[in-house]
């Protein structure tokens, strides 16, 4: 290890060095270790102090001669340093020299949103050559009930890989699922991209979805409508029994609470709305005869509201 006290060794020059040699050796080291150009680097700062002291001693011919004769040692050459630029520039005072001028805010709301993006280089090629893979886009068609109840579907990619895609409960058509790290491979050890899967939902024969509620048209017989009674209603989670109140007309909407899209992702379960539709069904002689001789107690005109509107 070099003797830290020997200014020749500090500057890496021979004892016979000319003043030009000294100057050029000092410049070379100062460029490398100037503390204002190496803020926060204590080793550079220490090295620069020694280099400056050595230069201070050897660049003065008289001092150099006395040192060479052994009259003085290398100690005590450290100059009192004036104010260092780094001491101010690291503080708010340094904003005077920032690009936007002293009034420019150094943080704004845009910074906050992309703070972990642009400021620290996420998603960009990194200095070490790593590059994140591309996101890849796929689409997946699923049937209505799988979208409502959730399911796992296997997707075969163009490159032959298969992906097991978990379709979460309550997925809606057009929703995009992100599978982290399942996209294009990264380069140079970089992260893989994501697979983005756009989900299409095929319509159901009976169910119709609006938000988390599900509607269906429920056919009922004349006697179920008039007399009321229990009927089976299909729901996305299987049939349930529902009581039809007596004298329910076509178009009456009955609610099954919580039988729509199940609760998911912090959203409460939706309801199922069954809209009654009276069906006469197979022609029935007795019914026909009864109606032919039937006189209603209170004759009704169901088209009353339409009259005078032709």
């Amino acid at each position, binding site marked *: 290890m070099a003797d830290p006290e020997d200014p020749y060794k500090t500057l890496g020059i021979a004892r016979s060095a000319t003043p030009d040699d000294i100057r050029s050796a*000092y*410049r070379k080291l*100062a*460029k490398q270790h*100037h503390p*204002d*150009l190496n*803020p*926060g680097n204590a080793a550079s700062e220490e090295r620069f102090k020694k280099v400056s002291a050595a230069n201070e001693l050897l660049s003065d011919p008289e001092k150099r001669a006395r040192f060479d004769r052994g009259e003085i040692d290398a100690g005590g050459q450290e100059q009192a340093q*004036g*104010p*260092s*630029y*780094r*001491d*101010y*520039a*690291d*503080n*708010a*005072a*340094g*904003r*005077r*020299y*920032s*690009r936007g001028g002293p009034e420019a805010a*150094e*943080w704004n709301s845009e910074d906050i949103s992309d*703070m972990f993006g642009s*400021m620290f280089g996420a998603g960009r090629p990194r200095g070490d050559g*790593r590059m994140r893979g591309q996101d890849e886009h796929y689409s997946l068609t699923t049937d209505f009930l799988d979208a409502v109840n959730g399911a796992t579907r296997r997707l075969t990619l163009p490159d032959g890989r298969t992906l097991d895609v978990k379709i979460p409960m309550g997925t809606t058509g057009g929703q995009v699922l992100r599978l982290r790290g399942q996209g294009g491979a*990264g380069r140079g*050890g*970089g*992260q893989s991209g994501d697979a983005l899967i756009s989900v299409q939902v095929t319509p159901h024969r009976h169910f119709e979805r609006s938000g988390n509620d599900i509607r269906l048209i429920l056919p009922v017989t004349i006697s179920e409508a008039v007399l009321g009674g229990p009927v089976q209603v299909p729901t996305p989670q299987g049939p349930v029994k529902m009581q039809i109140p007596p004298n329910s007309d076509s178009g009456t909407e009955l609610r099954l609470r919580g039988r729509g899209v199940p609760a998911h992702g912090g959203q409460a379960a939706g309801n199922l709305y069954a809209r009654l539709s009276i069906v006469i069904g197979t022609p029935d002689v007795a019914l026909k005869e009864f109606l032919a001789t039937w006189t209603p107690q209170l004759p009704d005109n169901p088209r009353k509201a339409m009259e005078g509107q032709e």
Partner: protein
Amino acid sequence: MISIEILIAQNSGLDRQDLERWIQNDWVRPERQSGGFVFQDIDVARVKLIRELRHDLDIDEEALPVILSLVDQLYALRRRFQALGEAITETAPDDLQRTLAAHLVVRARGGLH
């Protein structure tokens, strides 16, 4: 806060014409008050830095703006970095701070991509 006369008096060998040219080039940005320049501590330190760059490091005035621009960007980032660190220290729970630190250490070793 000192005037240009005092600044020159305190810095032997500082040439007034050089200094005025640096101000004109916007390399040094003293405030202007009642017709004269007023130098804050940071401006004084900046003048010292520019003199060291010019004379000790032998950087000519063609290259100087490139270096100053990089220096300014370096310190702007250091201020932001420090503000970010302070914000994390003041607002993030201890366990999050430990998680962050551990994550950065692992990443620095090349353990995470």
